[in-house]
């Protein structure tokens, strides 16, 4: 529903406006540790191989990402089993091959970086399988867009708050689209919950491959991602946007509260399918 505001912004912009890239001097804020700790356990795999990426924040116009090297990274489960992540050649990328994923199990991430301890806890959230993907041509606001709709197999559980996190990867363009949702309007729906994205028909061509992924999502992650996406989406910063603010994740700095990190510690069961764009659209089932 929040997208409506962007839609208004879109209508306004569509009607009268003009956009122009400008040079604008910006202030530089404090450099902080960025923790990209997303544990994905793809259905049907053992989920032992996992990675965590540590980087540093940089001035807004700076192009390259600085790796955060030399950290100690580990995840601990409720049995106090420790999974150590080792860095690959000063890349800021830390990996393990011994992770033990268990649905609904609680995990704690601990990172020691430059003498400070960062820590956060999260639960491994289950996810529904993707049932089918539907492609509709000549739709959307221009009437020329391609709509890609992915339906989940499981119905929304009534009476509980459910959250959804969806990733769509456009392989040829190396582009990711993310979406989060809650069940505010679909609680206990008898119909399938879906994700929907619109592509420009000039961009998405017949034969293009999309990789669609449904990821288990906690309430806290939904809130985090909702805010983060609303500040990075098209239309953000436009006439109907909310005032942006710092997005805080679920990891805290135990040594120095004010030197908090960015990023999130998330654990999700995932289901991934690949869809090939067809000339006339249609539907593809993924039921085994």
């Amino acid at each position, binding site marked *: 529903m929040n997208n409506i505001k962007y839609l208004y912004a879109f209508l306004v912009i569509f009607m009268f406006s003009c956009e122009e890239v400008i040079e604008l001097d910006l202030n530089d804020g404090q450099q902080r540790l960025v923790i990209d700790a997303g544990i994905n356990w793809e259905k049907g795999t053992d989920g032992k191989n996992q990675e965590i990426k540590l980087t540093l924040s940089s001035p807004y116009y700076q192009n390259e990402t600085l790796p955060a090297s030399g950290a100690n990274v580990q995840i601990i489960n409720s049995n106090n089993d420790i999974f150590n992540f080792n860095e690959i050649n000063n890349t800021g990328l830390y990996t393990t091959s011994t992770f033990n994923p268990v649905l609904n199990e609680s995990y704690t991430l601990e990172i020691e970086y430059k003498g400070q301890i960062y820590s956060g806890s999260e639960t491994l959230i289950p996810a529904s399988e993707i049932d089918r993907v539907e492609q509709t041509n000549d739709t959307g606001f221009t009437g020329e867009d391609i709509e890609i709709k992915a339906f989940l197999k499981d119905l929304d559980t009534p009476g509980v708050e459910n959250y959804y996190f969806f990733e769509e990867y456009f392989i040829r363009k190396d582009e990711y689209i993310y979406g989060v949702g809650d069940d505010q309007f679909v609680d206990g729906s008898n119909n399938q919950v879906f994700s929907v994205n619109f592509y420009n028909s000039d961009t998405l061509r017949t034969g293009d491959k999309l990789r669609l992924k449904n990821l288990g999502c906690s309430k806290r992650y939904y809130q985090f991602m909702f805010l983060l996406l609303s500040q990075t989406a098209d239309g953000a*910063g436009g*006439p*109907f946007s909310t005032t942006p603010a*710092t997005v805080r994740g679920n990891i805290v700095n135990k040594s120095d509260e004010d030197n908090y990190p960015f990023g999130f510690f998330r654990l999700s069961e995932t289901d991934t399918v690949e869809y090939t764009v067809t000339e006339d659209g249609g539907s593809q089932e993924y039921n085994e």
Partner: protein
Amino acid sequence: MKKHLLLLSLISTLLTYSQEKFTLTGTVKDQSSLESLIGVNIIIPELQTGTTSNEYGFYSLTLPKGNYNIEISYLGFESIKTNINLDKNISYNISLKEATEDLDEVVLKQNIERVKIKNPEMSVNTLAIETIKKMPVVFGEVDIIKSITLLPGVTNGGEGTSGFNVRGGAADQNLILLDEANVFNSSHLFGFFSVFNPDAIKNLKLYKGGIPARYGGRVSSVLDIYQKEGNKNEFHGSGGIGSISSRLLLEGPIKKEKGSFLVGGRSSYAHLFLPLFDLDNTAYFYDLNTKLSYKLNVNNSLYLSTYWGRDVFKIPGTFNNSFGNMFYNLRWNHIHNDKLFSNLSLIYSDYDYFLNLGFIEFDWTSGIKNFNLKYDFKNYISNKLKLEYGVNSIYYDFNPGIIEPTTQNSPVQPDELTKKYALESAAYFGADYKVSNKVSFYAGLRYSNFLRLGQEYINVYENNNTVVFNQEQGIYETGNIIGSKAYERSDVIKSFNNLEPRAAISYALTNNASIKASYNRMAQYIHLLSNTNSPNPLDVWTPSGEFIDPQLLNQFAIGYFKRFNNTYSLEIESFYKDVQNRIDYVDGADLIGNNAIEQVILNGESRAYGLEILFKKTEGRFKGWLSYTLSKSEQLTKGRTPEESGINNSQWYSTPYDKTHDISLTNSFEINKKWSLASNFIFQTGLAATFPEGQYQYNNVTVPIFEQRNASRLPSYHRLDVSAIYKPNKPNKKIKGEWVFSVYNVYNRMNANSISFGQNEDSRQNEAVKLSIFGVVPSVTYNFKF
């Protein structure tokens, strides 16, 4: 000896009071149309006293017995000078003749827009519709709201934002009255145009401060707009063809000299041509104003005003959106006697919003309805004392949202957000008293009461904490719900009472200069939930209650007012105001369809202060004004405990419509009978904005890191607009036409409406993108009258 003196003065006072007094009373009308005239000056030069006609053209003056000269004057009308022997109560109905537009002849014109020196009224701007119609505007669309933003202390959030901001107040803090009915959304097309059809409007008055006790319910300003009644003598029409919309207004007698009708319609029409380009999409707006007036007899008149306005956007199969205001208002004017005038209004008004999203297959409706009963009295005790008093009660029915799936396959479940009900009542009393030739004051008191009535259920929270602070992560989270309460519709969930004193005083330094001071306290019980920079049509109104307290305003203003030889005037005012219980939203608050708004709001305050200067030339062929505002508008939302961060780390931050400097120069020049020119120049400090101070990569997304809220500014805003009006009229021609040629933003300044930050699609480099709405916009409008 002193005692004797006192006694003597007492006796002399008594003597003056026992002096025989009589009342002169009546109504003021336009001679040709019998339209009642508001704000006509009726002056007794000998006594240096006088009055003005009220909103219904009624006036009353009580004077000692005697023979008086009377001067009656009004903008655009020929003045009348007459002599009356007041030896009994006299009923005198005044008819004014429209001034011929012969510029060679010197016509004595008095201006309703002229500053009132000896009246305690301050912080008030009156604009005649004639003045508004001369201003150059974008697409040539005459716009009341855009015109008032040229006045000191009035601004908006930029082009394409709805509403307006008065003295640093929010858009939802303006009480907008059209023929006394509440207007909840003043914009068409998300703010490009206002909902008021200029042809149907008689005049408007904007109260920025010193607001009289008869108004209440909003804390920032009152925009009081009056529609025309319609010609009681002859059938007439007027209209115009513009680049965005066209207008037609018809008026005439139902029964000659007794009753009249007025029907005015306006609609955008670009959508009519869309099918030619094979586009099914449609976007349009329209509004329809009607009014019936009927004079039952000398002392009783009835008025029925209605308004319907709507915006529609449709993309077949995908998106269907429509929203609008409407109201009905039935009024009864009654003259009880030559000193007592009353008006009883029965008003129904609503705002509704409809949305259908084809691809998610659901309908969404929301809205607000209200019934309003008002009974207002004006009592003209003497030429020194005027009283006003009345009662007012509004019943609200809030529909925050109903969701219905439109197809069987839609995953959306039917749902209805909890409806809310409230009753807002008030009683007020005010007195205008002229103490001496130098000193006048106004004192008023409004008592307001707000009852939040029963609804289906209300959440109960652990420790009454609707929002909890997660100290470790530094964020606000929703409170823990431990149950719910159910109420009957007749139950009162919460009751609020407020006393709202109002006061104003003027001291005349000379006949042409005065100083004034005013104070007003006001309460606002209903709030527009909006956390975007500019309100949008989807925003819903919500009443005060268990979780939201009424907003309370204190405003002080002082001013210096001077007139120079009846042609120029200077008004300097300074104000300070603070509003308690201004709600703010936690970061990431999702307000749409939120049934528990209390989980995402925090209680804060706002304040604004500033200096306003208005220099005007009100007479002659060259007219205009220069207005300058220096101001600051801020908001503060502290953490409830020292551990909490509050919003923006518990520090004051600029509101999204804060502008330090705001200058506008508006003028018009009549070259000859056929041609006149007008221009506006505007310079404003750029709006407060929040820029990134860094970035990071997360999940393949580049995330900007934002600085403190509204800590930076957009580039300065300025533009020049010009227009020329051509009246090719031959005398005795039945249809009178005029051409309005205008150019908005003459030097094509690409003013920043907003700056957004993102990645360049090709280079994937971060960049800042400026969004500008209007560059140079030339337009032609044709207006006609018959």
